[in-house]
Every structure is written in C-alpha cells, then in structure tokens.
C-alpha cells in the first residue's frame, strides 16, 4: 500500500523544527497554566466533604479542545505550515495527483498532526487524570471528540483559504470569527455540538450519557455530527479544487496539471 504523500509530508514535518512547533508550544503553555490554576489546592478531606472532585481534567480537556481547534483552523487557513509542507493549492494545482487522494491525504495528515498535538499534551492530561478521577473510556471519547473537532476546524480553515485566501487580513479575521461563532454561539444554542458540554458530561461527577432530541446518545451524536460536517466540508473542498483545476486546465489550453512541474 502506497503511503499518501501528504501524510508522508506531515510525518516529515513533525520531525523537523519550525514555526508550527513553536506556535503549539505557546498553546501548550496555555494548557499548562490552566492545569496549574485548576490543580487542587486543598487536601482530600475538604474534597470529600464538598462531595465535588477536582475539575482539573475537565478544564484541561476543554483547553486542549479549544487550542487544538484554533491551531487546526490556522493550519487549514495556511497561516503556517509544517517545515517542508506544501499548501493544499500546491498539491491540487501543481501536481497530477488525483483530487480524491489529495483530499484523503489532507484529512489523514490533519488527523496525524492532531494526534501529535495530543501526544504533546499527554503528560498534562495524565497529570490531571490521575487526580481528577474519571474513566479511561471517557477520556478516550474526549480525545476522539477533540480529533474530530480539530479536523472540522482544519477543513473549515482550508475552505476559508480556498475561498478568500488571497486576502490575508480577511482570512485572518474570518477564521477567528468561525472559532468564536461555532465554539461559543452554536455551542450555546445547540449544546450537543459543543465540545465544552461534551467534556463536562463525559468527565463530570456522574458519567451521564444524555440523549439528543432524536434519542441518539450525545457522545455518538457529537462524533457523528462532526464527522458528517467534516465530510461535507471535504466534499466542498474537493469540488472547489476540481473547479480550480478545470479553470487552470482551460487557461492552459487543455494541458494536464503537473506537466508544468519540473
């Protein structure tokens, strides 16, 4: 089985030093600050008296969720790239790779990147997990939710870049607006779409498996929703790239893409 070149590029990029790593180091510092602030200051006695365990893990997972989403959104909008990584336009318009393979590689590469970010956060997550209680299963659900959410934001960023990428300041503004709107407004209006709500329910005092209006367990609904929306976003990206390729091919008199690459 051939490894997708986009995934290979991500794997190589993760093992090189660049701006992306430094950017995420800043976000990791934010996570560390949150962890420290939420670290239990009292002993076990007061915790048992209040019948309320430390919220350290919940706070940290929420932070990991939002920082990963922000990072993915910026990566999608190509505000930064991994060392040696090419942008989506480059792959689509300058290589003869099939678009389906490009989009698949793009999605897989993003998932690999997100997994790496989770690995970087794992010492912090384990610190919080040991003292906060909670189940491995719930933590795994939260990690899956974080990955899927990051994928959605990556594709949203990519869409934004494909549509208005040539105007950097507008793109810069829009990706942050997307984050605020989807994270805060939509999350508040439709709670089961919110990673914050998801984390609270999964890691809360009583592990509650709420259901949505359609009777589906909320954690499945969350995962299905983000997977579905990401799929749609991927399709739209595919369509946009195909139109772009056709436009370029038409402008070049029907020559196939990639022939120009030397």
């Amino acid at each position, binding site marked *: 089985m051939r490894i997708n070149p986009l995934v290979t590029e991500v794997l190589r990029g993760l093992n090189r030093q660049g701006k992306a790593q430094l950017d995420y180091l800043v976000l990791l510092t934010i996570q560390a600050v949150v962890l420290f602030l939420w670290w239990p200051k009292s002993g076990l*006695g007061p915790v048992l008296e209040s019948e309320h365990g430390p919220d350290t893990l919940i706070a940290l997972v929420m932070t990991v969720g939002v920082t990963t989403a922000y990072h993915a959104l910026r990566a999608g909008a190509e505000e930064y790239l991994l060392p040696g990584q090419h942008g989506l336009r480059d792959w689509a318009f300058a290589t003869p790779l099939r678009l389906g393979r490009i989009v698949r590689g793009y999605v897989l590469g993003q998932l690999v990147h997100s997994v790496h970010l989770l690995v970087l956060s794992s010492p912090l997550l384990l610190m919080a997990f040991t003292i906060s209680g909670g189940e491995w299963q719930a933590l795994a659900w939260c990690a899956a939710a974080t990955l899927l959410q990051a994928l959605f934001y990556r594709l949203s960023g990519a869409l934004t870049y494909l549509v208005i990428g040539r105007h950097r300041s507008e793109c810069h503004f829009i990706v942050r607006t997307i984050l605020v709107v989807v994270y805060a407004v939509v999350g508040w209006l439709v709670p089961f779409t919110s990673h914050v709500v998801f984390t609270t329910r999964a890691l809360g005092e*009583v592990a509650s498996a709420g259901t949505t209006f359609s009777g589906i367990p909320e954690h499945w609904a969350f995962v299905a929703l983000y997977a579905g929306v990401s799929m749609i976003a991927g399709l739209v990206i595919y369509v946009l790239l195909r139109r772009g390729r056709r436009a370029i091919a038409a402008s070049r008199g029907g020559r196939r893409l990639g022939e120009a690459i030397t």
Partner: protein
Amino acid sequence: MTSRDTVLDRGYGREHAGRLWRGYGPLASLIVLLALPGARPLAMASGAIDIAVTVGFADTFRPGHWTPLSVTLTNRGADLAGALEVQVSGDGVLRGRPRVSTHRRRLELDRAARKRLQFVVQPQGLSRPLVIRVRSGGEELARTEVDLRSRFSAQRLLLVLGRDADLDYLNDGAVDGLRVLYPHPELLPAHWRGYDAVAAIVLQGLSLDRLSEKQFDALHKWLAQGGTLAVSGGVDYALLRSARLAALLPGVPQGITRLDAGALKDALGASLEVTSPVPVNRLGAFRGQVRLRAGEIPLIVEHRVGRGRVLYLTFDVASPPFDRWQGMRALFLQTLQLPPAAMASLGATEPGPVPPLMELIRDAAPTYPTSATAFLFLVLYLGLLLAACALAARAPRQNWLAAAGGWAAPALFASAAWLLFGPGAFPRGASAAAVAVIEPLPHSGYARLTLELGMYSSRSRALRLEYLGVEPVFAPHRQAQRDGKIADWVFGDGPRPYAEALDQRRYVLHALEGEDVIAFRLDASIVDEAKGPRLDLNNASGRGLEAVWLVFAGYAYEVGPVAAGARVERRLIAATHGVATGSASWRDVLRTSSGASPHLPAAALSMVQRRLQETSGSESLAPGDALLVARTSNPMRLAGASAHWSQQESTAVALRIAVVAGDSAANEADSARADMSRPGGPESDATPHATVDRAATGSH
C-alpha cells in the same frame, strides 16, 4: 370476555372470527408459545411463594430501635435460587426523599420447602411500610409490604420467656413505661442488637437450650453490654442446671428448700398472702450479691456479666403466692432497676466537632501532590520542549533533536506523570477508612466495638465493601444525616457480609456507623498508692496492644506495648513516669507526647473522647477514675473484592477503671477473703478486679 361472547353469538360474528383466526391464529399461537418461558416468573409472583413476616417480638417493635424481623418463606413452585430483600425506608420526607436501606440475603429454596430467615433492621418511622421481596435473576418473584402502624409500641419492651408466667401487671403505658411481650423463644434475635428496644428479659420455666448457638450468643452479648436477665426459680430446678444457664446464673440450684410463711412475710412484706411453706431453690456457693434474703436463704441474687446483670429469683414468680401478690410489680421493678428510657441509639441531631472518620482521612489518606510539584514538573517539561526546539533551530540538519522533542519527550514525561502523580502518590480506585474503639466489658470476655466506616473512590462506580471478622449493625453516619447527604445502602449477609453504597458518584464519602460486641478479654485493676498508681493489666484479648497509656489524677503514664497473652504489673510514680496533663485535655497530651512508644492515633482518641461524652456526659474523667488507652488493630478486615482497596485505619482500646485507694484495697481484699470463707458468700464481685467494672462506657 363479555364483548367477545356477544360477538360470537351472532352469525356474521362467527364468520368474521373464523376469518380472523385463519389470518392471525398461527401468529397468535406463535406469540403464546414464545411467551411461555417468560410466564414462569409471573406465575411464581402470583402466589408460588408465600411470605409471612413477624416484626419485632410477638409482632411488636419500638420505632427508632433495632429490631428483629423474621421472614418465613414457603415455596409452592419450582426450585428457587435468588435473594431475599428487606427494604427499610427511613424518615426523610422533609429532606425530599427518605433514605432506603436494603438488607439482602442469598436464598435457596427447594420446591415445597419452607425457610425462615431473620434480619435485624432499624425502622425509623411508621409512615412507610417495610417491603419484603424475593428476587431471582433480576426479577421480582414475590413481594409483600408490612404496615408498621399497627405493630409498634412506644414503651420499652420487657420480654417474658415462660411456660405459664403472666407478668401483665408490669405493663405501663407511660412514655418511660414497659410493654410486656411473650415472644416465642425460637424467634429471638440472632444478633445482640436485635434487643435494642428490650429493657429486660424474664425467664421462667424454660432453659436456654432451645435457642440456637447464634441466638444464645446474641443474648450473652446483649447481657454483657448492659442487658438485664431475671431468671425465676421453681420446683423444676433441673432446667436451671443446664450448661447455658449455669454459665450465666450466680449459682446452680442444689435442690429445693421450704421457706416458712413467717420468714417470707418478713422478707417481702405482710401483704403477701401466704400460710404454708413455699418451695424455693437452695443455692450452694454462688458468685454475686444477695439482693434479698429471707433469713439465711437468698431470694434474689445478682451477678454481673460485663455491664449487664443476671438476677436469680430463687422462687417461682408464676406460682402461688407470688402470682397473685399485689406487691410483685413493685418487687420486680425494684429488682430490675431499669435505667431511664434512652433515645434512639444513633442520634443525628446535635452538631458536633469534626467526625473522627474525617479526621483520619485528613491525617492518613493520601492527598494530592502539591502545586509546587506540579509546577516543577510542568516547567521541566515545557523547558525540555523549548530546549529541543531551540537546539533543533540552531542545527537544522539534526532532525533527531526535533523528533526527540516531538515524540520522545512527551512519551517520557507521560510515563513520569503517571508514576509521579498516579498510583504511587495518589492511588486511583476505591479506598476504605475505619476508626474504631474497643471498650472491654469487664469479666465477660466481650468488648463493645464502635466504629466509623467510610469508603470513597476517585472513579464513579458502585462501592461494595466486603469484610470479615465482625458482624456489626450499620447505620448511616450521623454527620451525613445532619448534612442531609443521605444515601441508599444495601447490606448483604452471609459468609462474606458487605455494605454497598448505591450512590455511584466519585469523591463522595459514603460513611456508616457500626456497633458490635466482639470476643475480647482485657482485665485491669489500679490501686492508688502514695507515689502513684499501681497497675495490674492482663491482656487475654489475643491482640497485641501498642502505645498503652494510663490517664489518672492529672497525669498520663506511658506503659508501653503489651503483647497478646501478657500480664503486666507496674508501679507508676507520678513524679518520674507521669506527664502532667495540667489544664489541657488528656487527648492532646496523648496525641502529642513524645514517649518511647508510637503515638496514639488522633482519630481514635477523638472517638474515645466522644464515647466518654456519650456515656458519662463529660469528656474528662471523674475523680477516682482512670482511663487506659492503647492502640491495636481493627478486628474488621476487608475481604473479597475489597481486600485490595487502599485502606486507612485507626483503632484504640479504651478501658475506664475505677481506682481503689491503697488502704481500702487491702481492706476490701481482706473483706473478700473473709466473705469467701463463708458458704454462699460473695465471690469475684468483691475482689479488687471487681472495681474495674466501671468500664469506659455504659450500655448505650
């Protein structure tokens, strides 16, 4: 049925029904066939198991007190393997929801078999019925509800176990009065706490041989921790010579002697209508004190068993002339000397200091790693990542530096985080904490065990604590009751009893208070001499005692460890061995004193202090009293699935001793020797050991 018959009576109806049957008949048959296996539990539920319930003694109980509950099951169906549950709902309406305690026991009942199972329960109120269920495979096979409103008595209970005794004259409807009941001996409780509402037991014309081993043990334990048993003699005195009664009675009857009417009137009063000699039991040597005698013949002899009393009436209370005598009620009440009625055993209304259980958890439970540790760890991790980034940036061709920073460092620190903050420093999963006080009951071989038990978990799960070694009755912790944090519990019986909290939230302390009477013999006497106390301590408890301290007359003396089976005699000199307690509490001195022995655990000392407060109304010792405190191991052991739980425990032995003055001790010893030389004279009760009898606590 009626509507169907009406339809079928019509011609077109028959035709229509035939079409229906041809269309849906096979399907209906299939549904019926498929439903047949599921119909069995329904059939059983509709009457295959009969449940008969007796609450308390002779179907009478006292609210707020532990009481026996007998459930008799008759199986008219197939063989059954399941569980019998008794659900007791407490008062909690004002707090929104009553707490529910479920007592569960495994049940195996063959076809056409009958079985009786006994529980000890504590009905808190009358408004909610007891629910008795038979369950198997998650299904309820039979159920009955017991209305408590018609079965209660507000008075203390006096049980009469007799062939033909009628003591109804002792009935008294006052709040502090008595209610006389005549239970069947076979229905007596198998746990001593079942006698909680019983003020006294009168035994007449029966031996105790009809009781099971557990029933007799329960009766003995109840006596040891403060019960009163009055045994009536009679012409059939052979009953009193049975092994069980002989072990309890002050003495064994040797025969019958006839007491003339005059002597009897002199002893009991002229109102006694007696003209002819009356047969009374003749005693040989006996232990105890004569409470009433007619000439040289003892009529009532008292013998102390632990903190309880056994009264031997050498005459038959159910025979003439005593059965008709008006003065018998006064004589009984005077003889029984019943203490004022006590409130429910585990009160929950008064506010108190920090519960010993919480004190133990604060002191001994593993706590979170400090913020400084967390900070240092985070700084190291981020610093390493930053360093890897910086080095990789300076040497772009050294890709391994970035790879190490990106993959190896997180893996290394993740492992370190798990080890540093995880199982080593802060164990995940369930934990149990227990604070216990053992109060030896003098000259009984028993001790009262009072314990606070807590369990908690850092994970959301149902906690089931399995244990061995003791058989306590549990009630929700008073602090939880006071705070309204009342959870539902299941208490399982059997070879490995358990207590299961149904609240599955993590970081919630599920706390119980338990009481039991255990086998434990520790005898001590103290003689107050000029320079200090002289202690004689005999540890026959089978357990080693560590950090033994004696508190007496403003001083605390360190005695050191006393091994199991050891006897220690110490002359303690206040000036040399004593640590002056001054105005401070003895508890603070014992907790902080830097003696050679390990310190006494603070939580257990708090519990000793509380027991003193509960039983004598004061945390300090009365003049002439001494307190022996020691550390030992908890007789309650975690077992089964709970054996690997993280555990904190703190157990103390507390014995309050009435000190004998040096001179009077010698005098009393001489006096005792003189009494012993006389036939029928008092035996052990007059020896210096007898002065030990005022142990740390009273009966409740």
